[in-house]
Every structure is written in structure tokens, then in C-alpha cells.
């Protein structure tokens, strides 16, 4: 099994994607005043099997301080008391 495909992708995107991400910040949604791209990630449990890969994928953007990465777990939902009825009725 070769890992050449991820390596190629990484080298291809590293500089250009950061430049484009900076451009995209200009079209961010109205509520966001941070000047950064906001990523919201629902990960279910605390130890999500995919999270390591996701963090690795966005680390380059985080290092450049271009994104805000926020996560939510089911436990967060439970703590904030988002019951089924509140969730579906929009409280």
C-alpha cells in the first residue's frame, strides 16, 4: 500500500489553499467578526475515531491562524439540556 497520494495532495495544496482560505474569509457569514473561517464539528463521543485525521487535515490552517475549529459532543448537548422537544421546536 503506497501513501504517495496523501503526500502529493499535501504538497499540492499547502501554499495555494492557505492563500485561497484567506480570500474566502472575505465572504464569511455575517455573525462572524473574527476574520477567520469557522468550522463547526459534531464529533459524537469524546474519542471520535476520525478526529485525529480531521485535526491533521486542518492543522496547517490552524497554524496559520486562519480558522476557528469548534467541536460539539453528545455530552455537550446533554449538559446544555438540549432535549428532543427543545431541539425540534427550536426552543
Amino acid at each position: 500500500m503506497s501513501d504517495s497520494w496523501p503526500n502529493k495532495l499535501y504538497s499540492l495544496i499547502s501554499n495555494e489553499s492557505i492563500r485561497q482560505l484567506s480570500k474566502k474569509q472575505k465572504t464569511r457569514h455575517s455573525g462572524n467578526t473574527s476574520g477567520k473561517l469557522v468550522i463547526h464539528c459534531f464529533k459524537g463521543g469524546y474519542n471520535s475515531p476520525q478526529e485525529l485525521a480531521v485535526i491533521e487535515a486542518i492543522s496547517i490552517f490552524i497554524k496559520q491562524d486562519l480558522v476557528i475549529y469548534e467541536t460539539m459532543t453528545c455530552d455537550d448537548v446533554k449538559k446544555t439540556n438540549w432535549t428532543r422537544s427543545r431541539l425540534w421546536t427550536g426552543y
Partner: protein
Amino acid sequence: MDWLLDCDIHLIITHLHQNTAELLGWNISTLMYEVQRLYSHDGYPYRNRLRDPIFLQNKFSYLELIPTITNRTLKIVIRQTNNYTKEDLSSIKTFIDDIKAEKWMLKLGFVTNSFHSRSAKNYEEILQHLKHYSKVLYGIYPYVMLQPYLLNRKEYKVVVFDGKAQYIAASAKHRGEKSFAKDNMESLLNFAEYAVMMLKEKTDDVDCEGLIRVDIMQSNSHDMIVNEFESLEACIWSSERCVKQEGIICRYQAAFWRTQLLKFIPL
């Protein structure tokens, strides 16, 4: 969903039912409906990927697409207060008369680790279990699946990435299991690739670019069959001798997630 919509790019990196149905008791059907609000929002999943039966773990939905390589399955809607219809009961009778298995298995879709699975010896026991599901699970899970009980409990979990089988992940041992591919692991890998390819041919909704774990069992007539597919929450631990492969897969997955993000950052 409001929280996921209130950002530039949303990501859902878990199967939707994980904890939400099991711990919070949310209604799966409503959840599947609500998640469609992300249809036009940038992120993963979006558009038709929100209907991906593997992402949703809508197990009957993907099993019915590939009936020739799965255990025979009857979908039974869980009714309120044990009010199963004449049609429900007659289809169960026809199903078990037709197959004539020694034992039966009742399994839920949208669950992991055989949550609430029950075996039954006959029609009467099946009805008892349906009564239990009606009492405990109505309003959370929409349906239960009835299948012939598989006598060989051995299950192989094959890790497939971008349609290509990579390795066989470790799995827990079960009583009554008997290896059925010990001398021919290649056949397992080929079967897993074939199953994913078959699914891909049947629907555009399934995301075959990323990771899919194909769980393979042996039918009572000794054929390989797909027991289930998993993706986002799949445990892909490998046996000790091939730990390196987990690292490689993690790198593949990182590339996959980066590709998903880049769809919204035009080059």
C-alpha cells in the same frame, strides 16, 4: 443543526445515531429528516451524502440494495403499544415459512455493538420480542430487522479505503465462531471490494471515497455475506503484526478530510 449551520464549514465525523439515540433517546427518523437542513450548507456531509445509508447507519436501506450478498432480511416497523398490523404478522409468517431457519435474529438498524439484538426460536418468540421493542424503543428506532440466525459467529472486518481493500482489522472473538477464510484471506479482501463496488453501482448517495469497514460473515449455506458496513465510527484496529497500516490509513483519512474542506476553498 442550528449550531452546524452557524459556521462557514460544518463537519459531522460520527454516525448520527451514536449516543444521540442510545443515550439521549432522540428519534432517529426525525434526526434523519433534520440533518437534511445541511443540504446546501458548505461542509461534510452535504447534498446527497446526507442520504448515505452508511453515514446514517440505515442498515436495511443498504442491505436491500445488495440482496444477493447479504443475509435475507425482513424489515418490521416498530409499532406503538404492540399494535402490529395483520400485514406485519403475515409477512413475518411468510418469511419464516419460506426460509425455515433453526433460529432467528432480531436486530435494530442505527445501532452499534448489537444493541438490543435478540434471538428467537420461533414465531411466538419473535412476537414477544416485538412487544418488547414496542414498549421500550417505539419513538426512537423506526424499525427492526428479522434475519435467519447465522450459525457461524465468525466475523471478519475488512478496511476499505477509496474502494480498495487494505487489511483485515482485529475483531472480538465470539463463542461458536469458526474461521472460514483462514487459508484464503485474499478472497475476503476481494469480496469486500466487490461489495463496495456493488453498492456504488446501486446508488450515488454512498460515499465510497473515504473509509468503509465491511463486516463479513458466513451464511448458513457457507457463502460470504455482508453483515454490515461502517464508516465514520468504525474501529479499524489492526492485529499487532500490521500496526503500521493503521498509521497509513490515518494519513489517508487526513487527506480525505482535507479534500472535503478544499471543496469549499476553490483553488
